[in-house]
């Protein structure tokens, strides 16, 4: 899906005068969970409307210089890096206020779009609740609503659902924008498996916590999982 600003305009209240800040009414905190470059572009578009993009791309590119055209990494982050470089120039021309609301940018392909080859550079990643502010923090800054922008047809990713569930329990109203021309819909996140489990890392280490998306990384190792 190629993204255009129209998808975000669609959630602008009709009564909103063409102000600089879209979505200004209840000021949601958007979480953009789109394939890397698309998310970067949308983040930059939102920056022009007063949001501060917060990239949360937790994947390394393969550090070595490599021949072009090979797929050494499970997650190809190079297009995301290119988009960040490109859009950073646009951001440099903006003056965002210190209290600009954030828009969090995640790569929808962070856990890999294809089954990884065992010899690939395994740079899959997950997001954790600690990558985001708490519901208390949102309340303290007057935010009552969060808006998830996933790839078309998708729901909240398993790792993200841990965060959204916590926010939901903390009194933050959740919405989802399912397609480019849709309006935001209410989102109710069910309790993820192992939600709130103590010792997530220990569970992971003991092999008790794999692929549920809320714990730590070792489950991704294909030989053990």
């Amino acid at each position, binding site marked *: 899906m190629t993204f255009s600003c129209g998808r975000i305009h669609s959630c602008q209240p009709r009564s909103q005068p063409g102000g600089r800040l879209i979505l200004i009414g209840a000021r949601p905190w958007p979480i953009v969970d789109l394939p890397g470059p698309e998310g970067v572009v949308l983040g930059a578009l939102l920056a022009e409307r007063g949001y501060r993009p917060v990239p949360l791309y*937790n994947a*390394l590119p*393969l*550090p*070595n210089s*490599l021949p072009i055209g*090979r*797929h*050494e990494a499970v997650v190809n982050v190079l297009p995301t890096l290119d988009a960040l470089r490109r859009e950073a120039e646009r951001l440099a021309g903006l003056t965002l206020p210190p209290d600009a609301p954030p828009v969090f940018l995640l790569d929808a392909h962070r856990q890999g779009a294809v089954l990884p*080859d*065992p*010899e*690939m*550079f*395994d*740079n*899959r*990643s*997950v997001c954790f*609740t*600690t990558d*985001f*502010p*708490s519901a*208390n*923090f949102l309340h303290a800054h007057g935010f009552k609503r969060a808006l998830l922008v996933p790839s078309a047809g998708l729901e909240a990713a398993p790792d993200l659902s841990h965060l959204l569930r916590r926010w939901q329990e903390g009194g933050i109203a959740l919405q989802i924008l399912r397609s480019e021309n849709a309006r935001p819909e209410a989102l109710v996140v069910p309790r993820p498996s192992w939600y709130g489990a*103590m*010792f*997530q*890392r*220990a569970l992971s*280490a003991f*092999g008790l916590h794999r692929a549920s998306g809320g714990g*730590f*990384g*070792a*489950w*991704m*190792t*294909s*030989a*053990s999982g």
Partner: protein
Amino acid sequence: MTTAALTMNRPHSCPMREAAAELRTEAPLEAGDFAQLRRKTMLEGCKWDVQVGDVTALAPFPLVMKRSVWRQLARQAEKLDAEAVAAEEEISRRPDLLHRLGLPRALRKALAADEPLTPAAGRVVRFDFHLTTEGWRISEGNSDVPGGFSEASHFTGFMAGHFPHLMPAGDPAAAWCGALAASAAGGPVALLSAPGLMEDHQVVAFLAAGLNARGCATHLAKPEQVFWHAGQAHLRTQWYRGPLAAVVRFYQAEWLPRFAAHPGWQHFFRGGKTPVTNPPLGILSESKRFPLLWNDLATPLPTWRALLPAACDPRARPWFDDPGWLLKTAYCNTGEAVCIRHLLTPWPWWQVKLQARLAPGGWVAQRCFESVPVPTPLGPRHVCVGIYTVNGKAAGAYARLAGKPLIDHTAVDVALLLDPHE
């Protein structure tokens, strides 16, 4: 990897004034200076988790220790390491003791095998010291996969640049990379970590940069991509296929047996010819159940006995109804698996007790100590000073501050600087 420390915060007679005699802080940097330092730490120092939830993970001021205190702690860390090495060697010859450390069965078997130990490319350990009402004490030694190098070296070095009258306690990353590069002798080095764990990736990326600067080719990989042929480690990836001169295993030893189908993982411990770090026996003193073996060892451990609080098997009763004890797993590498009764609500504490009763061999009860908070610009903070030893010599420190008497992922990293005139 972050390391758990644990303390108990009871009303204590030791005032913060006394703590201030050991430690103090300087004024915070100007906002602009700190923003620049933070950015450099992220972009040049591979410190990618500078924000954890609502907490900024870097303190804008240094923690200052008297040089005389540092010398004393550094000496103790070196003694702790020497004693641990001797104890590990003795335990490795005693399968009956191996059984009591909480190791996975397959790893126990690998360690007890007759083959010679895989050589070490070096040894780095971090001992976590806490200021308590009884003086400095340790909560643990991290002898398997200690992390924190970027914070202890890069961030601390930058902070020191703003305080010319103070000095860093050392540069553990430089010392460690120097030792690794010497072992690899310019050959290719694989740095292994768990996929999906960014806080581990940042450590290996930082170390790789240090090794590159010393002329070593480096490869970031995962353990399943290492194959062993006649004891020689080979990397099999799309970007490099061939032998390795050294392997940096930034991957917890107790996780490796999960690769049961992967041929030769045991060579990380025995039968390998390619040097691996940390040494295979480091996992023995990494166990939080290590103190339970002391009375059965011929090796004297006077420094450990003096500095580590008493520990007991969860099957022993003292801890059960006594709030002066806490529970942690045998291989807890983060504060999440450290369970302090008064920091938990009754239900989680009940769950912990149940788990410890169901699998007591994987847990240990440890007596709490009373941490003394230090006055800081953030308010009173509990301090953990992790002192590194590299090949037996003290090499610097990774310091953290916490508002509660538990050092976990919410703790704030702080640069430890020494006052050379004290």
